[in-house]
């Protein structure tokens, strides 16, 4: 936290009174999570007598998180802190897509398709990917996984699409 920028960029989307945007946003997000948890656990039974109900502990933790989130937000207002982070879009997007592709295809299409497709999609996550070598490595990896997981380790994974298997 030592390298606080003295000249903050003028196009900052935050009003002037937010001196530490990173903490400000972080704290607000935690408060939102806490509020959501309070709402989600509102239908649970509370204390009865001196014994806990199902909802007691979740509500205790949610209230604690709400308070802590507020404190972090206050830190962001009262003290100078790092500027709001910049997010890259490429890595998160394609890694997420690869994960989703795997989840969607593993059941109906089997390990071979799922592993290869999610490997290729994940590889889109960086502009440095060279396609020839990626395809070769992807094929090798898929072959390796198809041998390692179902055969060597005996995990019950289906290899091929279900419409191909008898």
């Amino acid at each position: 936290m030592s390298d606080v920028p003295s000249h903050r960029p003028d196009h900052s989307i935050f009003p002037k009174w937010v001196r530490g945007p990173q903490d400000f946003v972080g704290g607000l997000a935690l408060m939102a999570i806490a509020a959501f948890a309070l709402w989600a656990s509102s239908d649970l039974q509370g204390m009865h007598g001196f014994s806990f109900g199902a909802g007691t502990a979740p509500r205790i933790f949610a209230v604690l998180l709400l308070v802590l989130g507020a404190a972090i937000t206050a830190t962001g207002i009262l003290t100078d802190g790092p500027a709001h982070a910049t997010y890259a879009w490429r890595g998160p997007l394609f890694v997420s897509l690869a994960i989703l592709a795997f989840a969607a295809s593993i059941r109906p299409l089997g390990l071979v398709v799922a592993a290869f497709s999610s490997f290729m999609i994940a590889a889109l996550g960086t502009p440095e990917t060279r396609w020839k070598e990626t395809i070769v490595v992807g094929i090798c990896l898929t072959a390796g996984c198809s041998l390692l997981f179902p055969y060597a380790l005996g995990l019950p994974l289906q290899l091929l699409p279900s419409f191909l298997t008898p």
Partner: protein
Amino acid sequence: MMDLFSNLALGFGVALTPINLGLCLIGALVGTLVGVLPGIGTIATVAMLLPITFGLPPVGALIMLAGIYYGAQYGGSTTSILVNIPGEATSVVTTLDGFQMAKQGRAGPALAIAAIGSFFAGCVATVLIAVLGAPLTKLALAFGPAEYFSLMVLGLIFAVVLAKGSVLKAIAMIVLGLLLSMVGSDIETGASRMAFNIPELADGLGFATVAMGVFGFAEIIRNLDAGAEMDRDLVQQKITGLMPTKKDLIDSAPAILRGTILGSILGILPGGGAVIASFAAYTFEKKIARDPSRFGRGAIEGVAAPESANNAAAQTSFIPLLTLGIPPNAVMALMVGAMTIHGIVPGPQVMQNQPELVWGMIASMWIGNLMLLVINLPLVGIWVRLLRVPYRLMFPAIVVFCAIGIYSINNAPVDVVLAGAFGLLGYWLIKHEFEPAPLLLGMVLGPLMEENLRRALLISRGDATVFLTRPLSAYLLQIAIFLLVIAILPNVRRRRDEVFVESES
């Protein structure tokens, strides 16, 4: 004392069976591999390999997972020294002097000292676990729910004090973890909590799923941010003269000893573990050195101390897990997961009911350390060649492995999607300088804390002062408050930050 020997004999009997020796070797090798490769950490690896251990006997599974943890500490030092890339967070400080030594053509001695130091630390830690195990277990049996609750509060506070960055944010992460652990069925009433009628959430969020997301996927996404092509400035010259000189040995012996002691202590404390230990050991060596300016220019103590410390800490962190059933860090939390898969509830009763499990694992640690010492130095060349695999090819493979790993835990595609969501959450947390490790610890301790809190209050008939009137519990809470106050005090804070800032680059 006789107990100790008979226990160790029992342990070696278990650990020396061919299958367990083989699993120990596999664990140590896989550990070294992930230790060498940057961009994939111990936590993600252990999470990834959890499903693989389904088919193994419980002892074998734990032996292998333990091997990964301490093997990674060995492997991390190799790349730190040779290519200035710490393969593991625990070896970050080793780069400072290790790489300098390599540049001066002394890579061989640096590697050898790191290995010898690690081995010595591993031996000491193994004995320590064996010695402390039984008495701590007895102590644990005297613990009631109030004491357990207070102990966990203390553990979480330790995690806060030792985490880097803001104390407030670390506490917030713990509470977020506690909150996440509440998802799923209530243990006592069976009511579904915050599960939104999603059947996969009825059992709660899988710990491995969250760990893989926050540590595996988030790490990959973060690395991609920086550009996949990492700077790999390999030391080209041949490694000659592996053996350290007599002077090297004399110089490093006290450093190894100090590193081992410091690491052992920090390993037992909750929230600490190997990362803190290596930083602390390095800072300590620099403080007490007659000529501190040598550090950062190839001082052999700067390699010996942190490498001994991280290995010692990696192993002593098993003590609270095995005796109290409380995981002191995220890797140990995953070990809890591995034990639960096999129907073992970690805690003092394990030591009594299944001594062969605990002592077998302890004995295997010593054997594993010996294996690492013997196999690692000759294999250095292979490990370095592995580093030439570019990250652009490595990261999609890690994504696929992680996905297969999570899927095979429950054969549930939803788990994979959840891990992906937690990956994005983890990326967001990193961007906002929230530490994910306390979150994971909170998530593991959450159900235990709730259960003990409930029980304590039920026994005391709703009287919350029970935590202060029971002496042991009151002591534990006092220590916790004391620590928290210290951590917030400004000048300690500054010094604590220095420890991290000094070597973080």
